[in-house]
């Protein structure tokens, strides 16, 4: 048996009332709850007495309905004022006068019902199932069963928000990293075991350390894929804390793992192998620690004509295939090398003066003018040339047209 409570704008009160009777509660915002009342007959008596008890407990004007399935109870509570007990096998008769809009459904379904002249549950319930299936498909059959009060299902029980965290207060502050990691290892093992028992993984590890006479030290690891290996997390935390160690003794540790669904992946038989995510993440963390976080990643081009515009992103593993066309590529000088250029009267570069000395330009091609972002603060306005320098190579040079300074941008190779 299931009970439903409906009172406009009082959902928290309804939930509080339902919690007195059952742990299995389904919330249907904005104003209805349904809950399981099996077993209450021994305490309160008949369904009508149970409904009366619930109505007294809620303490505000509310509709109470009891039925053999959750949907029949919900529709009765929403459509019939006061206390309603829907007797088994009489659901269709009880629900028949209810207006059809209580069923919900897509606008197309409502429009079709309107065209057919169907206004109530009873009129829909009277339609032949085969005809409804032929015209409205699976959705039509579902609404037909709802209108007849025959739809049986389990309650969608509201879940407690699971938190996977642990706190540890230390009697004596810990100054060294090794004992701190030892404590973290134990905490990680325990939290990962709890995650595993819920068939979950994590993609974010947060650590907060309360320090002795110093501000709190926080660190967060954001993982590209859900993982559940405490050893990997410990190694990543070690690298993180090695790079940015706490500035004083640690008095309290708070560790939280954000739960996410586990990773499921179907490997193709003929797909080439890729780096194992856990190992790759440790390798990347080491390299980031070595060369800086902004210097490792997968380059992604930006949607702009500004030269050398890209951002470093994660190696996300999206496999794409581009038609390869072998061609000369540019090797950039970062930052561009400042030089002096001597030009002819018609603006052709003929000599280059660089830190290496003076060189003759044998061939030049250009100029190509580019500019942009003049509508923002960071505009550029330049004149580009391709030049061949005797016994040196082929370079791309440009002149900043605002400052009139010349730079070597890179070499073609």
């Amino acid at each position, binding site marked *: 048996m299931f009970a439903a409570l409906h009172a406009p704008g009082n959902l928290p009160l309804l939930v509080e009332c339902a919690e007195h009777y059952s742990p299995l509660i389904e919330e249907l915002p904005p104003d209805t709850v349904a809950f399981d009342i099996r077993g209450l007959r021994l305490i309160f008596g008949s369904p009508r007495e149970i409904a009366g008890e619930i109505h007294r407990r809620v303490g505000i004007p509310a509709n109470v309905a009891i039925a053999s399935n959750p949907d029949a109870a919900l529709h009765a509570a929403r459509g019939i004022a006061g206390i309603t007990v829907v007797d088994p096998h009489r659901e269709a008769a009880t629900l028949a006068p209810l207006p059809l809009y209580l069923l919900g459904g897509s606008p197309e379904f409502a429009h079709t019902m309107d065209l057919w002249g169907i206004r109530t549950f009873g009129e829909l319930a009277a339609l032949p199932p085969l005809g409804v299936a032929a015209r409205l498909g699976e959705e039509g059959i579902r609404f037909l069963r709802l209108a007849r009060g025959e739809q049986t299902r389990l309650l969608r029980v509201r879940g407690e928000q699971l938190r996977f965290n642990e706190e540890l207060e230390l009697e004596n502050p810990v100054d060294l990293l090794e004992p701190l990691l030892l404590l973290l290892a134990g905490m990680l093992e325990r939290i990962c075991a709890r995650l595993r028992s819920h068939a979950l993984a994590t993609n974010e590890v947060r650590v907060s350390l309360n320090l002795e006479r110093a501000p709190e030290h926080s660190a967060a690891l954001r993982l590209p894929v859900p993982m559940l290996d405490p050893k990997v997390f410990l190694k990543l935390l070690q690298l993180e804390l090695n790079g940015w160690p706490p500035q004083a003794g640690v008095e309290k540790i708070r560790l939280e793992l954000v739960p996410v669904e586990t990773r499921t992946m179907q490997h193709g038989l003929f*797909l*080439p*192998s*890729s*780096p*194992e995510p856990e*190992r*790759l993440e440790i*390798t*990347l963390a*080491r*390299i980031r620690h*070595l*060369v800086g976080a902004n*210097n*490792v*990643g*997968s*380059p*992604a*081009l930006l949607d702009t004509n500004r*030269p*050398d*515009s*890209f951002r*470093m992103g994660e*190696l*996300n*593993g*999206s*496999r*794409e*295939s*581009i*038609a*390869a*066309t*072998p*061609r*000369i*590529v*540019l*090797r*950039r*000088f*970062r930052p561009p090398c400042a030089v002096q250029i001597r030009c002819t009267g018609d603006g052709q570069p003929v000599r280059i003066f660089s830190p290496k000395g003076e060189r003759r330009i044998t*061939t*030049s*091609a*250009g*100029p190509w003018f580019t500019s942009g972002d003049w509508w923002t603060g960071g505009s550029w306005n330049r004149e580009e040339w*391709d030049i*061949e320098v005797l016994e*040196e*190579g*082929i370079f791309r040079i440009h002149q900043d047209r605002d400052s009139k300074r010349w730079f070597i941008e*890179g*070499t*073609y*190779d």
Partner: protein
Amino acid sequence: MVAATVQCASDLKRSFESLPFPWGEIPRGALTEIAGPSSSGRTAFLCSMLAAASAKQEFCALIDVQDAFDPTSASHAGVALSQLLWVRCGGNLEHALKAADWLTHGGGFGLVALDLGDTPLKIAHRIPLAAWFRLRQAVENTKTALVSLAQRVQAPSCSMLKIELSRDRTIWRGVGPGRFLQGFAVTAAHVKNHRRHEVAITIDG
């Protein structure tokens, strides 16, 4: 039918052992060296290898010692940037060698490239031979092709294939203000198993 199956199996075995790219193929599980002066087409060679590996949906890593890689022109040359891990070392050779060591030992990459193209010869020569052997050993019996790019061959006793490039001439198209760079005519000398083969190729601009 049998012949086709045998041919198919042979192709599969070959693709496991080497990585074909437009101008040849490089061995997997071994070190390949690309050497040449500036503007000799060595980076075009490297990018065509990266493009070939990424076209096979393999992941690639580029350890860029001097931060010279240009994603825009590499993308035009066919490199799938989403499958490329780019490590910018800002001129620090020691960091580059460490990163290469970790990436080769981590496994799973189709191609790991170490770009020493703009590193002065004096500094590049300081890399001990043991470091090259360690890198080679890390990729041995794996499907990873290890490629180094430098101005000169750095570890002749360690690399299975050496590709030495030199620019014969630059091809310009047009005259006057309308002229543009069309490509390079280069000579590529492949040295494998002490046999040297020279081929003349043109790289388009």
